[in-house]
């Protein structure tokens, strides 16, 4: 049973570092709101963790979308909903 970890703050000590301590292989990560600033400096994630970023929050901040071949998957709000449904549960870190 895998978990979707949602990060909405840019400060890695708010959320991401705590999240990494409990993240398991096969979990998912989603960066939204100010959390998208972490897209450029994402640390190594456990095995088989898929990382996603909310496209409209990236664009609102003038950050370029991840290019082809990036490990980061871009999602829109429909994709956000699909992720929440695909993982067994979600945790919103702050």
């Amino acid at each position, binding site marked *: 049973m895998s978990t979707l970890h949602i990060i909405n703050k840019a400060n890695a000590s708010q959320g991401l570092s705590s999240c990494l301590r409990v993240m398991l292989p096969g979990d998912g990560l989603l960066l939204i709101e100010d959390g998208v600033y972490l897209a450029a400096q994402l640390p190594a994630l456990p095995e088989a963790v898929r990382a996603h970023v909310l496209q409209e929050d990236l664009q609102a901040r003038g950050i370029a979308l991840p290019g082809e071949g990036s490990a980061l998957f871009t999602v829109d709000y429909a994709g*956000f909903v699909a*992720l929440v449904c695909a993982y067994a549960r979600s945790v919103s870190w702050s």
Partner: protein
Amino acid sequence: MQANQPPGNTVVKLTVVVHSAPYSSQAAYSAYRFTASALEAGHEVHRVFFYYDGVHASNALSTPPQDEFDLVKAWQALIEQHELDAISCVSSALKRGILDAREAHRYEKQAANLAEGFVLSGLGQLVDASLSSDRVVSFGA
């Protein structure tokens, strides 16, 4: 690169919890966008629970400039259109000056301002929603 969609078209029963206030945090808006997208995708939104500062989204007296997005009205339209169960935590709301007519009468206040469509209720509604939903998503916790 687009993320893979989950297989099938299963309807998922969702509960959305909103912890942040409009104009203080983007999370209040994100929660609305998420809920609207979930409904658009055909999922069931079992309950939206407004907690702590999140209850400000149910203040009928919120009056943003006419050319700005009005989150209270947007929620009201979504609630009406989809007959959503939108609960503002009663203790969070009373402390923040958001009262329905009954509470205004009980505490002898001069006015009530809970936006139409929202209901004041207790934390039990969040526990109940967590138990009876497939997924619970929190915003701005």
